[in-house]
């Protein structure tokens, strides 16, 4: 009883703080100083039509590198936690409840979903979308494959090779920016191109493709690890 009343008191206190924050909130009339710089100079400095992409990949590129490393660390810890004892014993898991309709539908749908994901991350600098969204869409295509097919052909080795290569290339492109352009992750290593076409904005599309591949393979790896422990016992 004491515990419950303390909890209610805590929530009421938090609610009072939040109410004060809400009452003091005044809607913005114009952009702040930094955002105004990004909005006015983003077109000439980065050349990406999508300003959110310009902020994520170039102006705050270091944050994105940190984010990708956090995701990699999470995938590694999950793989470590779920390590099965019989991981070197490649006995085929028992197939049960395999639906023919679901399997055939998945075989048709998976390439289309992967195509959509690829479109989303290749056009990340022009339209809404980008590496994280495209990677998540690709991972959901692989989830469909893992659910619907009895023995999905997902090779763990290929996944980890793609993941490591894209991560390393991301860092190498960032370091090339120090040598050839203004600083780490500067996108003007190659020319900016015509504004609004697919080959524009310097290295932004390349970095977003790498991020998309890395996020897609990492999320697929997490789900594949979770799927593997479903089959044991």
């Amino acid at each position: 009883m004491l515990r419950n009343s303390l909890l209610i008191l805590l929530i009421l206190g938090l609610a009072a703080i939040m109410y004060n924050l809400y009452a003091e909130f005044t809607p913005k009339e114009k952009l702040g100083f930094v955002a105004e710089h990004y909005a006015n100079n983003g077109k000439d400095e980065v050349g990406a039509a999508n300003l959110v992409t310009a902020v994520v990949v170039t102006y705050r590129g270091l944050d994105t590198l940190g984010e990708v490393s956090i995701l990699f660390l999470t995938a590694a810890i999950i793989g470590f936690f779920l390590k099965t004892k019989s991981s070197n014993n490649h006995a085929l898991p028992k197939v049960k409840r395999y639906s023919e309709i679901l399997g055939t539908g998945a075989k048709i749908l998976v390439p289309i979903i992967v195509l959509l994901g690829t479109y989303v991350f290749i056009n990340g600098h022009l339209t809404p979308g980008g590496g994280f969204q495209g990677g998540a869409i690709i991972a959901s295509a692989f989830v469909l494959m893992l659910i619907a097919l009895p023995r999905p052909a997902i090779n763990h080795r290929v996944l980890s090779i793609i993941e490591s290569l894209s991560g390393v290339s991301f860092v190498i492109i960032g370091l090339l920016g120090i040598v050839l352009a203004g600083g780490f992750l500067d996108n003007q290593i190659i020319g900016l191109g015509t504004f609004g076409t697919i080959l524009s904005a310097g290295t932004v599309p390349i970095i977003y493709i790498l991020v998309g591949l890395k996020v897609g393979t990492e999320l697929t790896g997490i789900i594949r690890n979770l799927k593997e422990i479903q089959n044991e016992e």
Partner: protein
Amino acid sequence: MIWIIISVVLGVVMITMSVISIHHKKITIAILSAGGVSLIASILYLLMAAPDVALTEAAIGSGLTTFIFFYVLNKIKKQKHVKE
């Protein structure tokens, strides 16, 4: 004006779904309504001129998170069966 009414309706639905997901006894319904909260939040982001965030929330917050929840729940249920 119409957008304000729509956002109020979406907000009320979101709050109701989050109350359901916190207080419902069945864990599957709780997980599904948490996914629904994410999905409606992505519509709210779209109304607030943030299509990038809306796309991310719909793909990650509402899709993959629910999937991972159900994988883990399925595994826990299987272990319960083994024990009995």
